[in-house]
């Protein structure tokens, strides 16, 4: 083929590339900075070290489950059950802790999350079931299990050492929750970008038939995706229970939608196959900073819910525009 052949290239591909550069390197930090500056004008405490550390703790569970959500969305699906699995893992983990000790409790949270997620994944891949419905059912199932186990009441009986280290301890001034969140994020990034598994996730999200015919084990990959999402729910449970010093059956309720919104807001395509961990990071940071800012300014939680809704719808619009395809 001679180089003089001009391929017909869709215009938006070029736009997307340009935007990808702006998006990840400039737009989000700029927006978050702007939000911070504006909030500081109203309430100087926003910029205080105390508030920023608090914000980082607050955001950690969402950041952690968003890592799993990113895998699910890039793989062409979604996981509505992460937050419910988080609640369930927290409850059973803390119950285990009081009998068998802290380490066993943590293990139950993470392994329990993995098992729950793998079951989701097996159902989705074996029966070719819709991830939306399967994980929606799993959401209800997990919440139900958590509520029946505790009779709907929170469990406050946590080992002090657990709460004081993971919940309130810090390393060189940085609290444990954000450290765990960042480590999860980095692990997710490496897994997605540098491993064969990650490549298969992207391929399935981009075109499942193409991946299947090329010899990718689609069933295994999907099972692992949801298993991974369950693991992040388990890690989230460890961080959240320690930080709030209790296990609540309704913990993190609504965060499945928050994480989905954050991931899409950050630039992961809902249609699958496009996006990376950095997108999830910026999306979570954006949503979190917004809600903290509103808190600081003293806007009621009712209005906050409203504003979050608007941002989520905006994210959907941005997703539509950003990933618009030629017909």
């Amino acid at each position, binding site marked *: 083929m001679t180089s003089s052949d001009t391929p017909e290239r869709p215009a938006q591909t070029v736009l997307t590339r340009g935007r990808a550069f702006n998006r990840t390197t400039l737009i989000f930090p700029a927006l978050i900075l702007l939000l911070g500056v504006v909030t500081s004008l109203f309430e100087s405490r926003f910029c205080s070290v105390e508030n920023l550390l608090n914000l980082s703790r607050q955001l950690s569970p969402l950041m952690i489950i968003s890592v799993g959500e990113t895998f699910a969305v890039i793989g062409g699906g979604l996981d509505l059950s992460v937050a419910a699995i988080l609640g369930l893992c927290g409850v059973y983990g803390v119950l285990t802790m009081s009998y068998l000790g802290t380490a066993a409790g943590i293990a139950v949270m993470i392994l329990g999350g993995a098992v729950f997620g793998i079951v989701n994944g097996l159902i989705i891949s074996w029966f070719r079931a819709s991830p939306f419905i399967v994980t929606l059912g799993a959401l209800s199932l997990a919440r139900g299990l958590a509520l029946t186990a505790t009779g709907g009441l929170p469990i406050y009986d946590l080992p002090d050492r657990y709460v004081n280290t993971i919940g309130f301890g810090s390393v060189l001034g940085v609290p444990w929750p954000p450290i765990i969140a960042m480590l999860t994020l980095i692990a997710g990034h490496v897994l997605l970008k540098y491993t064969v598994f990650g490549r298969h996730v992207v391929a399935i999200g981009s*075109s499942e038939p193409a*991946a299947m*015919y090329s*010899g*990718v084990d689609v069933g295994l990959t999907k099972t692992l995706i949801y298993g991974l999402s369950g693991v992040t729910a388990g890690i989230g449970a460890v961080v959240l229970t320690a930080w709030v010093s209790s296990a609540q059956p309704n913990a993190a309720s609504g965060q499945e939608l928050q994480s989905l919104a954050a991931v899409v807001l950050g630039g992961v395509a809902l249609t699958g*196959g496009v996006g990376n961990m950095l997108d999830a990071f910026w999306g979570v940071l954006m949503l979190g900073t917004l809600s903290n800012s509103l808190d600081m300014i003293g806007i009621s939680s009712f209005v906050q819910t409203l504003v979050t809704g608007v941002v989520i719808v905006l994210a959907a619009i941005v997703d539509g525009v950003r990933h618009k395809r030629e017909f």
Partner: protein
Amino acid sequence: MVVERNPAVEALTAGIGAMQHVPRELLRAEGICRRFGPVQALASADITLLQGEVHVLLGENGAGKSTLAKVLSGLYPERRDRIWLYGQPVYLASARVARSFGIATVFQEFSLIPALSVAENLGLVRKRTSSPFRWLRSREEIEATRELLSAIGFDISPHARVSELAQVQRQIVEIAKAMIQQPRILIMDEPSSLLTAREEPLIFAALRRFTAQGGAVLYVTHRLHETILVGSRVSLMRQGHIVETRDLDANSTEQDLIRLLAREHSGAVAAPGFKPGASIVKVRDVHAGRDCNGVSLEVRAGEIVGLYGVPGCGRETLVRALIGLVRVRSGSIEHGAGVRPRNPRQSARAGIVYLPSGRKERGILSRRPIRENLTLGQLDAVSRGGFVLPQAERRMVEERLRHLTVDFRSMEDEIGFLSGGNQQKVLFGRVLRDDLRLVILEDPTAGIDVQARAQIHRQMVALAERGVGVLLVSNDIRETLSLCSRVHVLCAGKISATFDAPYPGGEAAVLDAMMGQSAKSPGGAEKPAAVVGN
């Protein structure tokens, strides 16, 4: 065809009838330009459409043919365009506007709604009221649909759901959908990449009837023999320009067009003297799925075997059975070395790779880099402990892209940046595993330009020379005969005839066998191949 007049077209075309003998200009476009990012897809293209002509727009993929067709269909509106319809300047603001001016388009991509019946799909465009809540008058629609389809020469039930139709039939419904809009101008963008020798003449006859009634057709293609068969004028496109326009008559030959193209049409690769080796796969009287009813064939190392048949004849089922996706009900599939694969992954590991037809749906990973598209499914070769080795991967990609003469700028570019032919070459690169033993290629050159096609043909021959078995599943008869040392004709789930090179009966014999006119009894594996000729 249903004679129902479109008032908008009527108003614009008033007076044309008065001077029927002079070919009137229905459409004129001058200096059409389109730029997509860095790519100048159209650089001042001029074209006219005369009443009663089939105007073929010929050119390689990437020459700008599709873009021009889309502009004239109102899909890329641009106020500065100078376009006249029936002598009056118009602005084609949208596909809807173009349709109201009497321009109907058959696109490469299917626009039918799979869940609706044929009649319902046609009803969607036939009604003039545009209220989304109107009643569909089904009986009337069914009659109109039946009438139209039988006028084109096809027997497709108006009640059939589109999702149940074979791809070829969908293509025909697609054409009917354009026709039912009573257009003056019909634009067809590579309509025949799926049609076989059986449907082609019928469609061409329908086009001739359409032009005889005073319509004009803009027929976009890169196939020379179609141009000769259907065209009354041809415009050659290259790099966004119309390079030349000339009349075609009964004496025009493909040779003329090749001279016009001024590049060697290196379609055929002579079937080399094969020295077939050990059997790689031996299929004996296999019944599988719904439409594979007793197929026997064998592919040996170093030979190219053709399986000629239309989509829907059972060829997909057979291939899917070979890679373990469909359970074999009876009969046997013997793999020369080792176990029978139970899924595509095991199959790929055993060196048996299938490249399905349908580049967009089942081939490329859209919006992913060329690199990822090429190494999909063979990351094992460039990874250690589950981690991809970036340098090894890049080296593999570089090597393959060079080997396949893919025209690219950066392997990190999205595959969508490439032309169809180059995309197909990348996909071909995907099957070139080092441990390749058998490659199953389904319509590997459908819808790609002459050069890319020749390149893929050369690669197939090179693979066979390397000792790889090649099973070419195709409905392109020329390609099949020029490459394969043996051709099986698959018809209604059975092998209806088998031919050996050098094919004394030529294309005609194979076509006859497919139409079932000289159907040889479906030979068992032991029977000698029936050579039809003299």
